[in-house]
């Protein structure tokens, strides 16, 4: 198959323990059979709402969590269950940036130490002098100055802190960066800066991004391809243009129509899904989405969940009737495109 990152039928379940003896009474099926590849140099966007499993997915690909089932490959090598030294080595190649930049930084460390810590740990620099130079280089790359290095986290704004975490991430020269809601906690104007910085760094260092967000607009501007996740499974995956021009899965449609735009006083006709997102402990039978789907038929409710099929070249959908939503809801899309 290829791709720098390859994920095959990945599952991550968390046991639910109850009672005095901590018996396992069930599992939170956070990720339940996810497969995709990420090509070198591209940005794959993962979008979904709370409970969909996107955060767990990011942490599992990064191997902060150990998969329950399935496989993960990096550059052809399987990394699903590696531990110890091998895992430490892989850390240099796959890195992660978290949502809350302030909480990601130890309040007791100077920024210089924050950025340089991994360099020391992995013996990537010969001596203090080289460490200092490298740290200086990194902080400049993210748009900050030397004087910032001696300060502590309380001295910085959210946007600056996120730059610092990005500098820290770059220190080891990773090939893949998982970005877990990197701009969700930031103001709009700061978000724009960070997104631009990420784009610039991607070009300069030939980075591959796995960009996770709940914000469809943000995902749309930065991703090359987008995967829509619902309740632990990918329901649609294709390139950015096609997701917005010709979405197929009803959930994708609902997400798109929920997004407010920038037209004043414009209350768009919305596809409002009935009900709420079910718990991942007891996902619905058959197609996970069927209780909320206005088109659900018998086959959707019973039997197997629909397979993830390549309906058109490069366009994957998990639905028994992938063309239904398009037929019914085409007028909604026309509206969307006039933003």
């Amino acid at each position, binding site marked *: 198959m290829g791709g720098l990152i390859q994920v095959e039928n990945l599952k991550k379940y968390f046991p639910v323990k109850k009672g005095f003896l901590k018996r396992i009474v069930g599992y939170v099926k956070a990720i339940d059979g996810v497969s995709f590849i990420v090509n070198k140099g591209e940005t794959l966007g993962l979008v979904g709402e709370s409970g969909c499993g996107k955060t767990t997915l990011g942490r599992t690909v990064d191997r902060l969590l150990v998969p329950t089932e399935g496989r993960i490959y990096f550059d052809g090598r399987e990394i699903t269950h590696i531990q110890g030294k091998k895992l430490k080595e892989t850390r240099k190649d796959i890195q992660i940036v978290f949502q809350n930049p302030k909480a990601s930084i130890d309040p007791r460390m100077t920024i210089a130490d924050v950025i340089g810590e991994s360099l020391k740990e992995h013996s990537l620099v010969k001596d203090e002098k080289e460490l200092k130079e490298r740290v200086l280089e990194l902080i400049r790359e993210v748009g900050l100055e030397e004087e910032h290095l001696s300060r502590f986290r309380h001295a910085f704004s959210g946007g600056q802190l996120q730059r610092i975490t990005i500098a820290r991430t770059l220190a080891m020269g990773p090939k893949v960066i998982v970005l877990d809601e990197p701009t969700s906690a930031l*103001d709009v104007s700061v978000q724009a800066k960070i997104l631009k910085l990420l784009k610039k760094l991607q070009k300069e260092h030939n980075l591959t991004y796995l960009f996770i967000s709940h914000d469809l607009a943000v995902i*749309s501007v930065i991703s090359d391809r987008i995967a829509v996740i619902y309740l632990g499974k990918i329901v649609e995956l294709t390139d950015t243009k096609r997701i917005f021009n010709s979405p197929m899965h009803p959930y994708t449609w609902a997400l798109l129509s929920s997004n407010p735009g*920038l037209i004043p006083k414009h209350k768009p006709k919305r596809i409002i899904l009935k009900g709420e997102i079910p718990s991942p402990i007891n996902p619905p039978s058959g197609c996970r989405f069927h209780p909320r789907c206005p088109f659900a038929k018998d086959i959707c409710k019973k039997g197997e969940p629909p397979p993830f099929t390549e309906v058109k070249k490069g366009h994957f959908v998990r639905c028994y009737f992938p063309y239904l939503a398009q037929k019914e809801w085409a007028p909604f899309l026309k509206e969307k495109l006039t933003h």
Partner: protein
Amino acid sequence: MTKILLDIKDLIVYFYTEEGIVKALEDVGFSIKKGETLGLVGETGCGKSTTASTIMYLLPPTARVLKGEIVFKGKDLLKLSENEINEIRGREIAMVYQDPMTSLNPVLTVEDQIAEVLIYHFTMAKKEVKERAINLLKDVDIPAPERVIRMYPHELSGGMKQRVMIAMALAGNPDLLILDEPTTALDVTVQAQFLNLIEKLQEKYGISILWITHDLTVIAEMADMVVVMYAGYVVEYTDVTSLFKNSLHPYTSLLLKAVPRIGTRVNDLEIIPGVVPNLLYPPSGCRFHPRCPSVKSICKKQKPPLMEVENNHFVACHLYNEN
């Protein structure tokens, strides 16, 4: 001619902290008419939450209101006693906070939380309270309200919790509803439901809404008038259509261009150079001048006053003050 419900004038609020004086609000002023939705928009530190806290008189002990009036239904809230404010809070002015998780008391059932408001502000028999609570929950589109009133916050989803908060706010029959970032923590599909709900409620009850958010897309859809704040003061104040189609203040224009839109790419986003200033040491003159692409020498010396530049369109910017 619709009546003015809330009129804020020349509000100055500073915080006296360990590190120094934070000049949080400078000459803030705007008004809300009956039945109108005013969007208060700005980024972190602009003072929008402080403004809301000042209206509700829920400021931390380090805060000092140095100047200004907040006239609500003819009375200046800043001159009222603690008792008088308590009468108004929760009754005539109600606030819904950003995080429903921490705003609901985890050991009280939904019914008890709503009852608190009803019992404090109206004298109601227990049976009446229960009925009213159920009706309020119906109003906010919560299914099976008879069951929900007996539930605890942790048994409810995020969207449901947010609606319970609205129900609590409506319990007092308020004239003004202050929503402080109500949708920031919500999923986009839940947010869509929420926006629809608020529309419906506003139509039904004719309440005025002060909608505080940093999300311009929500403002576009829900607001009638918009106030844009930056670093503690009002930079632009006009109706929503004029703001989006014809923004006058450089900050507003840049802000609008920084919002990601479906169909555009990262390269299309505009950035505002620099960072939001530290309000311990705010810039001289116009607080936006260090970052403004159209800065002139007068901007560094004098703070531009908020002036009506076009019909019902106020801007605080020297570009429009040729005098």
